[in-house]
């Protein structure tokens, strides 16, 4: 089964597991299985419209799925999927 590495702040929703093994032939199916197993993850990863949140990047092994076939990217049993946040900022725009 492919595995998904869970970022530290999201492990509170996976019973403290840092890795979750999932079923699925594509990245989208694997993520769907992950959020079926751990329902509270869904709102952290997906918008109300069911799209991956803008600050969530998904990597298959070391490649960004945006440069593969996005959520239709095929996965093998030996693959590792990583959830990687987008982070940027800067001093402009003080409150």
């Amino acid at each position, binding site marked *: 089964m492919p595995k998904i590495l869970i970022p530290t702040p999201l492990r509170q929703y996976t019973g403290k597991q840092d890795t979750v093994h999932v079923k699925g032939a594509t990245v989208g199916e694997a993520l769907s299985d992950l959020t079926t197993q751990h329902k509270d993850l869904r709102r952290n990863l997906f918008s109300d419209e069911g799209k991956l949140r803008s600050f969530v990047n998904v990597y298959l092994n070391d490649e960004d799925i945006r440069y593969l076939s996005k959520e239709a990217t095929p996965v093998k049993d030996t693959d590792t999927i990583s959830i990687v946040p987008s982070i940027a900022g*800067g001093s402009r725009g003080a409150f």
Partner: protein
Amino acid sequence: MIRVAGEPWREMVAHAQSTYPNECCGAMLGRVDGEQKEVLVAMRLENSSAGSHAARYELRPEDLLAADKEARARGMDLVGIYHSHPDCGAYFSETDLKNSCPWYSFIVLSIQKGTFDHANSWLPNAEQTAAEKEELIYA
């Protein structure tokens, strides 16, 4: 509460002063136990923002992935992200709020005229509409 140990704190301050008048950024590795966080390693990352770095920073996702792998290899957690604000306060700006994944602690270091002045840690909310100040303790 987030506590930064002496060595990573000195590294973060040295990094922020060395990139002045530009912003620096990096990852903080350590341990998380509920709301108690301990930073044991500061990992410098490249500011990959296009254009001037005087008031902007950006992390490449692959660099963050590498930081997460480094944390796992050390038996640690990726606790948060730090960056600097040259010649302005350690607030969490609108730019920070709109562009940051709200899962982590974000430490902002204020560098005034090239020298460390003060720092704050921030916890953005899930809607990315506001950030709450987190108690920060450093050596």
